[in-house]
């Protein structure tokens, strides 16, 4: 009996197969369609737009923001937002290089302490959100400033001596003729893990439940505070990985890095169809959102537009996508 139920359920006829309903049931289709349209558009404007080299380039360019956006997705799914992620990443990256280069620590200890700093930020963010009940926007705006200052108090100079183990993540290997960096692969692996955990574990369900309705989640037996705390700490650890990828890609510890990574990561999350109100969305969407930003940047660059024009068009894109989503949600 149970087996028949399982067998019939996915095959059950879908009624009212309207585009709006399809978009709601499979929300990643929207961003995916946007990504494909963007690729088609740029293919008509430039030579050989769709190629392995270009894909590799987009991945490299977006590897840090793409990684930070995973943590950002988790937090936004709970109904929060994280403005501090770029600074946590920057602090971590100057610590893991600076403690090695300037303080003479072994690389493993330097990296460990850098990750500890990330965890500290995650704990502070999570504690202020759960125990004090402050809005995440305010909390992370504060920790953004604190992180910004701490980075500059620690160093204003770029740290050029970097542990070899970190440079590994900037190295390339070839698939056919296309060179892919190890860091890009690590980012994709992180996306796969986050997607799997959100989809297939009770903890992942709890993230959605808390973001959907914290009181209903609590009354359904979910320890909402523990879920939020775990999400903020986990996100901070992911920012630590972001720091590793940043150092690996640039080959230096850069105190100027990450200043606008918070806004870029939010852009990627929203373009990926995740609701800023929490409880709805998906990290694969965020990956697509990240790729959309990357494709637009590269495409516009190939068309000869300036960096400022690229940023401007990204802004327009963000507002357009968010409006479409908002109208679609309101329509039902």
């Amino acid at each position, binding site marked *: 009996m149970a087996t028949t139920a399982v067998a019939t359920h996915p095959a059950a006829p879908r009624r009212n197969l309207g585009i709006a309903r399809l978009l709601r049931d499979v929300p990643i289709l929207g961003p995916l369609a946007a990504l494909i349209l963007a690729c088609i558009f740029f293919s008509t404007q430039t030579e050989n737009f769709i190629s392995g080299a270009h894909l590799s380039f987009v991945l490299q360019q977006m590897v840090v923001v793409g990684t930070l956006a995973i943590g950002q997705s988790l937090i936004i799914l709970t109904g929060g937002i994280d403005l501090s992620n770029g600074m946590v990443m920057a602090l971590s990256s100057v610590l893991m290089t600076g403690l090695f280069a300037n303080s003479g620590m072994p690389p493993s200890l330097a990296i460990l302490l850098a990750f500890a700093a990330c965890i500290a930020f995650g704990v502070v963010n999570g504690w202020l959100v759960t125990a004090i009940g402050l809005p995440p926007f305010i909390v992370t705006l504060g920790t953004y400033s604190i992180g910004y200052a701490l980075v500059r108090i620690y160093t204003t100079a770029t740290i050029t001596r970097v542990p070899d183990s970190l440079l590994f993540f900037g190295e390339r290997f070839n698939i056919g003729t296309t060179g892919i960096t190890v860091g890009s692969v690590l980012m994709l692996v992180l996306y796969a893990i986050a997607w799997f955990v959100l989809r297939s574990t009770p903890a992942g369900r709890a993230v959605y439940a808390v973001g959907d309705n914290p009181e209903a989640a609590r009354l359904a037996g979910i320890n909402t505070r523990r879920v939020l705390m775990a999400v903020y700490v986990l996100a901070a650890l992911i920012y630590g990985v972001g720091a590793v990828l940043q150092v690996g890609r640039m080959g230096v510890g850069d105190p100027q890095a990450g200043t606008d990574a918070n806004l870029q990561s939010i852009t990627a999350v929203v373009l990926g169809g995740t609701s800023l109100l929490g409880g*709805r969305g998906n990290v694969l969407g965020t990956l697509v959102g990240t790729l959309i930003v990357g494709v637009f940047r590269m495409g516009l660059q190939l068309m000869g537009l300036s960096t400022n024009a690229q940023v401007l068009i990204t802004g327009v894109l963000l507002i357009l996508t968010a409006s479409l989503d908002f109208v679609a949600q309101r329509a039902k």
Partner: protein
Amino acid sequence: MTPTATPGKVLLEMKGIGKSFPGVKALEGVSLTLREGQVHALLGENGAGKSTLIKILSGAYTRDAGEIFFDGKGVDIRGPEDAQALGISTIYQEFNLARDLTVAENIFIGHLPRKNGLTVDWQAVRTRSRALLDRLGAKISVDALVSRLSVAEQQLVEIAKSLNRKTRVLIMDEPSAVLGESDLERLFQVVRSLQAEGIGIIYISHRLREIYELADEVTILKDGRYVATKRVAEVNMDELVRLMVGRALTDVYPKRQPKLGEVLLEVKGLSRRHLVHDVSFQLRAGEIVGFSGITGSGRTEVMRAIFGADEHTAEMRVAGQPYKARSPTAAIRRGIALVTEDRKGQGLLLKQDVTMNTTISGLRYLTRGGLIRRAKEDALVAKMIKDLRIKTPNAKFHVVNMSGGNQQKVILARWLSMNTKVLIMDEPTRGIDVGSKSEIYQLMDDLTKQGVGIIMISSELPEVLGMSDRILVMREGTIVGELTRDAATEEGVMNYAVGNLAKATATAPAPAS
């Protein structure tokens, strides 16, 4: 006892008022006459149509049938502006105050007086607010922030606000429900002084004592229909209660033949500061215990405490073993479940699908090695959809698009898909169509046959009488009466609930509890 003010000329007359909503006749043939300086009480159970009637008067709804006369002239109230222009003001239970503004600002919100046609004349705002508050005998500072005031003080600000406009008819929707005993006397004084000024007052309350204290006449509504208008001096409490509830029981309820088992839940001395005092009771396997009482009597607060949702003190046992309700998680692990009254706000995860809503509380029974076993989950949800006859295209359907009855079934599926022993249901059929209602009653009966114990809070007397094996009546945070299924009558329950105690104990002696 009855106020001595002589009623003046007829101020307001409503004749044959009717109002329908899709599928429901909310009001039919309701009439009411209000004179200057009269306090006219409006009495009826939840859902009797009181709110609909006053919303028609205040312009929140428009009537479908009937006529309204004001000062003898036919009027048409199409919106709140029309009601305001006539001088009809309403004090709802939920105050309409801006919490972060001062008392004076709230009183004058929307029509601040100007100086030189430009700047606000704050001096006038403050002095005129002071005068209004003095008229009510209120010693509140006009500069105090509303958020700092007690509920009783906020109510006075609401009244002052309505007096600041021309007010000839004041509608008060259960003004005493939000007040403590100590603030009642002041409310009565205010009502009497407004009455002396010639204002006509429509006063809604469940508390019979107040009606005798304040009102000249009382109009009783039941199921949206007009029952009677009586002079308060000429009707006794028993008759009022009978007029309020007297109706035939219908046969939507299953015939219960409970087989009681062991004591599943034992509650001793449960208290919550200001809300619940020393509540003790037992629930047996296979039993349905009904909790009756008026809104605000503390029933929901008791249940939330048992479920671990709020802080409390109590000594409890589940199946004989000591139980501390530290959190909903702890309660659920001991087999206690709560179906909340506010389905959308506290029950459902509205952005999620049927599957997620069904299994969210019992995922730990569906995992292996920390991963959710999809096949097992899908099978379980499919079984629940079938067993509870949940109408949904598929298990991935989002619950926000379902009817109230089906949403309630999804919540029930959540608790029945795991090992629930004590099922607490707070207003289980509120906002649910008749068909789903009887299905839910049938389900409750079936569950008790499987040894589940059910606690049901209900404000619908027929439901309480139709489903409960035993009825506990709460009033002002404590259990005031216990009635067995056979001894219970609607009048008996209502007498306990409204505090007509002499009569309550005379008609239905409470078994020693």
